[in-house]
């Protein structure tokens, strides 16, 4: 479609010029403005209305031309509209004049800034693209013919609803999508969405025959368990049956930390990226160390903090030392922070991360339990007392609140009863008893997922994963088999954690520091190592304590 000013003589005299059009106006808009008052014949795209705008002044000075059916109609419009009627959708009044004054025979200029330059061009609007495309017969059945025209925020909205797997796949569709989907903003918005939609499970286990440590990740939505996809892959290191067993930390934004006494790595099981952390120099080496690792996200600095708690020395209640590493800061090194004397970590209960703090369950020599909290942003620590002076608590996060579940034997009968407490006020340690779950047949050991006030407990029963749930609101309960691996490989599950699916890439965080190794592709996963820098800060702090 090209713009030609040489109209037929009779067309010239029934053409009006419309000045000060809004910047978003297009030919179709122009046509409809006058169609409403039946001044122009049914509008055909590009035939009657034309829009010109001055390139040098941007969109602000666009003007349009409209050819009417008759000279009389044009006169009527000029009389009725000029300076009297507002343009539909705007607050500006129509400013009309004859496009070709009889003396000149050339288009008159709508403002005094100078003649319209030769750089005037016709604006083709996306609207017309769509319409033109619609008319072509081949764009018939179930084809997203106008995906390119769909606003990017709609595409983003669609993509935000997709599971991680699909997003990874669709990155290959085109570059615009790839760049949209790898932005940090998209990753976090997607995470927020996923948190409410579905949950996944990370499980660490052994395949007996092969003597490999394997972890596998299963994702499933709460509603349908039939579409479980399980994948598993080997650790990058060769494992023998003598290698000490591994544990999984709490999950945070889809990341988990897999660790034992002398090894730790941050993994995103969904996108299969591993960052192997350096060995710590802060702890003396001795057997049977009780280690517990917590993972937290500092939303202020956008870094992940890995907090490692370890027994001070070999005596039972010698105290806990804890060290921190920031993944995402310039310097990736373990920093020894402090010590809590008289307590040990209850390593069976994994820590939880909620409201910018990591919480561990700790107990003293009298088996008195307490909660140790580590604020990720300020790196301050606190002890929170528990409501009942008893043992065997469980930490849960429900509705963005820290909760504890206390399981005890019912005084009447042989069943077990559990009390659920919610931490209402973390400053004054105020706990509120939310409900009592009676008649428990299974032991409430993590992972505990929460969804709409339901407590889900997933546990390994023989060769299958079973999920029990209990509704805290109406007291209903049930169980279902989530995963059954009876025939193939015998798997001994060692630990299971709830974990959201996310696109958060630990390697991209590592790349911000000065000490990272090249990325390897091992067993299908991306893998990078943090090399400990040879600075003495870690050893110095060790001597200090």
């Amino acid at each position, binding site marked *: 479609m090209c713009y030609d000013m040489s109209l037929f003589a009779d067309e010239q005299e029934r053409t009006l010029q419309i000045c000060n059009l809004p910047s978003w106006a*297009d030919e179709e*808009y122009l046509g*409809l403005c006058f*169609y*409403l008052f039946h001044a122009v014949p*049914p*509008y055909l795209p590009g035939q009657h209305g034309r829009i010109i705008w001055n390139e040098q002044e941007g969109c602000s000075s666009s003007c349009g031309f409209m050819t009417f059916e008759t000279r009389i109609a044009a006169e009527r419009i000029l009389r009725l509209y000029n300076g009297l009627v*507002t343009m*539909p*959708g705007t*607050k500006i009044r129509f400013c009309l004049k004859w496009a070709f004054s009889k003396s000149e025979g050339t288009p008159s200029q709508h403002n005094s800034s100078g003649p319209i330059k030769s750089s005037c061009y016709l604006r083709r609007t996306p*609207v017309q693209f*769509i319409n033109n495309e*619609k008319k072509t017969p081949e*764009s018939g059945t*179930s*084809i*997203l*013919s*106008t*995906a*390119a*025209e*769909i*606003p990017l*925020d*709609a595409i983003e*909205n*669609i*993509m935000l*609803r*997709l*599971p991680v797997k*699909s997003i*990874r*796949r*669709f*990155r*290959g*569709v*085109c*570059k615009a*999508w790839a760049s949209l989907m790898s932005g940090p903003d998209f990753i976090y918005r997607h995470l927020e969405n996923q948190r409410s939609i579905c949950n996944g499970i990370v499980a660490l286990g052994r395949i007996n025959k092969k003597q490999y440590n394997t972890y596998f990740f299963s994702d499933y939505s709460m509603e349908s368990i*039939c*579409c*479980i*996809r*399980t*994948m*598993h*892959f080997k650790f990058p290191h060769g494992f023998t049956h003598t290698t000490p067993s591994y544990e999984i930390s709490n999950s945070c934004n889809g990341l988990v930390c897999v660790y034992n006494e002398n090894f730790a790595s941050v993994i995103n099981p969904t*996108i*299969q990226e591993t960052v192997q952390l350096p060995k710590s120099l802060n702890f003396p080496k001795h057997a049977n160390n009780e280690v517990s690792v917590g993972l937290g996200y500092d939303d202020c600095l956008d870094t992940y903090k890995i907090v490692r708690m370890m027994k001070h020395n070999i005596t039972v209640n010698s105290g806990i030392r804890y060290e921190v590493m920031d993944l995402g800061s310039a310097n990736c090194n373990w920093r020894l922070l402090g010590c809590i004397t008289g307590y040990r970590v209850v390593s069976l209960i994994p820590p939880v991360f909620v409201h910018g703090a990591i919480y561990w369950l700790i107990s003293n020599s009298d088996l008195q339990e307490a909660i140790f909290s580590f604020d990720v942003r300020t790196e301050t620590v606190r002890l929170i007392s528990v409501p009942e002076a008893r043992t065997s608590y469980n930490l849960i996060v429900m509705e963005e609140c820290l909760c504890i579940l206390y399981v005890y034997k019912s005084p009447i009968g042989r069943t077990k009863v559990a009390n659920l407490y919610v931490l209402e006020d973390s400053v004054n340690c105020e706990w509120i008893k939310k409900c009592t779950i009676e008649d428990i047949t299974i032991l409430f050991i993590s992972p505990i997922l929460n969804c709409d006030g339901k407590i889900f407990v997933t546990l390994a029963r023989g060769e299958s994963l079973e999920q029990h749930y209990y509704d805290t609101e109406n007291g209903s309960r049930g169980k279902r088999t989530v*995963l059954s*691996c009876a025939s*193939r490989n015998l798997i001994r599950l060692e630990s299971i954690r709830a974990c959201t699916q996310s696109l958060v890439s630990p390697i991209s965080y590592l790349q911000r520091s000065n000490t990272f190794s090249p990325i390897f*592709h091992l*067993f*299908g*996963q991306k893998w990078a190592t943090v090399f400990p820098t040879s600075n003495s800060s870690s050893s110095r702090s060790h001597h200090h304590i």
Partner: protein
Amino acid sequence: MITLISSDKRKFHVLEEVANQSLTIRDVIEDRRGRRRADRIILVTNINSKIPEKVIVYWLRHFLMPEEIAHASMSHKKAEKLKKWEAKFFDTDIDTLNDLILAADSLDIPSLFDGACEKVSDILKNRSAEEVGEISKIENEFTHEEEEEEIPSENAWVWRNEFA
């Protein structure tokens, strides 16, 4: 009464209260309050007549139960019904969904926008990248080497369904 005019010149008369579900229309009406009748005409230039029909149906369905939405606990059954109805409403071809998204975007109807996006994402969920490229008519600009680099792990992943 408000009159909507689609790109193919069909007129749709809607009650103002119903059309107010579109934030764009509400703003326009608010702007022109107390003016002439002609100002109550709104051009919906980028959509054909099939879409306003659907949009108005959607509005009417939602207009009928604004109170129930407020009392979520009371209307559990009705909310379920609405959910079912919406599932049926959005069960169309992707072209229509596309137009609905465009319309919802320009008319600013968040619930319709979200609903249509949800449905499209449902359709796309289990497709391969090639299929999606075909559906959305997007040329794959990646060269072969780039593609290998971009999605290596995808192919190498051990996606197994053996435990399902």
